[in-house]
């Protein structure tokens, strides 16, 4: 079962995404901020990371950099709000593979994940 790490400081958002993903046959790991996300990544080596941007402790862009340092092949997909283009751009430059804009459409999340890990 492919493992997906959901990093978001809003537990509500994590719950929503986690539910969708488990219903579609993915194993879900969760982290509540960027630092926790990096730690989880190192520990559990997920197949894909869904990464929020605005988070306390460590933001999503820094987290992508850290994860990429640890594993250059990491697949990180940014989850952002509409007005955050500059940040998403920087995340992509830091190695994020794609992005999804909140509010998510379920099909879009699933499509995006499928493109990377089938």
């Amino acid at each position, binding site marked *: 079962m492919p493992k997906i790490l959901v990093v978001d400081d809003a537990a509500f958002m994590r719950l929503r995404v986690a539910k969708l993903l488990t219903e579609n046959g993915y194993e879900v790991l969760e982290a509540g901020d960027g630092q926790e996300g990096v730690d989880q990544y190192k520990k559990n080596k997920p197949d894909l990371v869904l990464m929020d941007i*605005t988070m306390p402790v460590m933001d999503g862009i820094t987290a992508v950099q850290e994860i990429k340092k640890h594993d250059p092949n990491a697949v990180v997909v940014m989850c952002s709000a509409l007005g955050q283009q500059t940040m998403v751009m920087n995340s992509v430059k830091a190695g994020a593979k794609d*992005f999804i804009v909140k509010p998510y459409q379920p099909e879009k999340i699933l499509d995006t994940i499928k493109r990377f890990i089938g």
Partner: protein
Amino acid sequence: MGLQFDASPDEIKLFLEEAEEHLQLLEEDLVRLEKEKDNQELLQAIFRAAHTLKGSSATLGHQRMAQLTHGMENILDKVRKGQLSITTPIMDVLLEGLDFLKVLKEEIETLEESDVDLEKILGSLSKAAAGGQTASSAAEGKLATIPEGSTAVTEVAAAVQAAEPAVPSMALDWDEKDHVTRGKKQGKMAYSILVNLAETSEMLSVRALLTLMALRENGEIVKSIPSSEEIEREEATSVLHVALISDRAKDQIVHVLKELPDVVRVEAAPLDITREEAGASAPDGVTVAKTTVAANEQANAPLPKDETPGNGNGSAKIKDTKIAKVSRTVRVDVELLDNLMNLVGELVIDRTRLAQLLGALESKYDSNDLVEDLNRTSVHIGRVTTLLQEEIMKARMLPVESLFNKFPRMMRDLSQQAGKDIEFIMEGQETELDRSIIEEIGDPLIHLLRNAVDHAIEPPEERVAKGKKPQGYVKLSARHEENHIIISVKEDGRGIDPDKIRASAVKKGIITEEVARRLNDQEAINLIFASGLSTAAKVSEVSGRGVGMDVVRNNLEKVNGSVEIVTELGKGTEFIIKLPLTLAIIRALMVSVDSRVYAIPLGSVLETIRLTDGQIKEINKREAIVVRGRVLPLLRVKELFNHQTRGVRESGKTFVVVVNLGGQQMGLVVDSLIGEQEVVIKTLGKFIGDVQGVAGATILGDGSVALIVDVPSLVKKVVKVG
């Protein structure tokens, strides 16, 4: 009108919990921000709260909430970037937005759509946001509404759409042509590729960059329009024109591109550099498009490049990790904690019972090994039970901050309304208190704070006339003191005049003139807690104290708390509230009367006195004793609970337990003192109903039931008669 959200009950519950946290943070921190304008960390936290609320509410499908939070976030973002500064009007509109947010949150709880009109606040928000940048007000208006799903059409994309070039042609300079020639020599193909991205694509520039990156995985990019630098500067269009050399077949590349998100059309043709000779300029269409976009982007908001937090910024990163403490918390239903507390209560009772049984065993089988063993185990169980009890109590504790949070905002508004200049100070927010107590003391504190603003603190002119500073203060503080929490509301206002209280109490018919004369000043001041006195508006004006002080005391007593007043006329008043740490378990003085055991909450016990013969006097038709020159009215527990008296006890063996409530003291006459003990409070419930003078019951170690004496109601009874 009924509302429906596309979310399960769990999800809605979690949403509400988080929303509440964010609203509370906003409530407290926005007001703080007004004072600490340069506190970047504070500002970031506020921004995050608004931002997260926006994301979550949009995901929940609460569009109006998403719009409102977006409007607020927009302002905060500009403040963050230094494009706006925190002024009173900006703060007002943010706080107003917060009020609306609360209503919208309630909609989710009730599933009833409220009739709030968001038009006005959304207007004020975008107007406030435009304040920093009048030039872009049109663009702001556009941003203030969240486009729904895929129907979002960005202005940029639309503007560019018209300028789409029809044919993929590419002008190359000498260097680029050389690049193509070298590639061809290696047996590679050169293509001119035109990619159309969906005009509805969100974050077109990022999408363009990702598309470019996908192309790079399939060959070498000789040139692209827009260039990757332009794309990274967010100047992309929905048309991407690329000259690529690759060893892959055209169809293969087209196929890869068509699989990419937001790619709606791909056209590729072999690139013939000989035909491109003349034109060093790009096709007109593309150039025009670029210009249009650049203009639009500038109008929107030229962002400083380095605004991104933590991106390649070494020092910022170090700062971040310094506070990077991963919190490991779970959410637990309060009910679960209550159940745990009850179960531990049972354990506490069994522990006492076990100790008693052991005592019996020990006296029967002296130094038996098994008994010794049992003893050790029992001691251990006792210790573990105590620890367990402490841990669960800790889990029930919340910092009073969760309650105090809302006060700065309230005080700000109240002061403004009353036209008073008041500095509101809070201290000890980290002090922890049982959550059920926190729930109960909210109203009393609001009463006290409101009264402080409305009645106690004088208007600036009056203060100046009195030789005081024009600005008054109200200080709300919490601290731990032994087994209690002390919450104090202190101000430097008018102070309470005991004579005025006496006069109005007589006028209201609460006491007779004679009684009024007999009351000392403290007793007179305590009359403001009497029902009937403080509810009269007239009195509140005269006394400088307001509405519902009886409610204050009653609410506090409900949680075994008490309140005392320290006041000095002309200088100010302090209300000192004393609260137990928890409700479920209290320390009590165990006493016996006719071999029945009673528990008197230790919080209200001042001292115990052994009575000597003839010490009891009759004063004002009531039994009393004189202690250190003061008359102490007595109440015989025996009579209170209608014991069938079997013979008269020798008075030499009688004790008086002196109890205190808000400065009023009285003595409870009991037969003997057993000692202090922790008792688990059980409510009497429907079996017995409301018994006068009884606060509850507890089960003793031997399984028998002891009543817990309700000191407040007894004191009131005696004082009223007096």
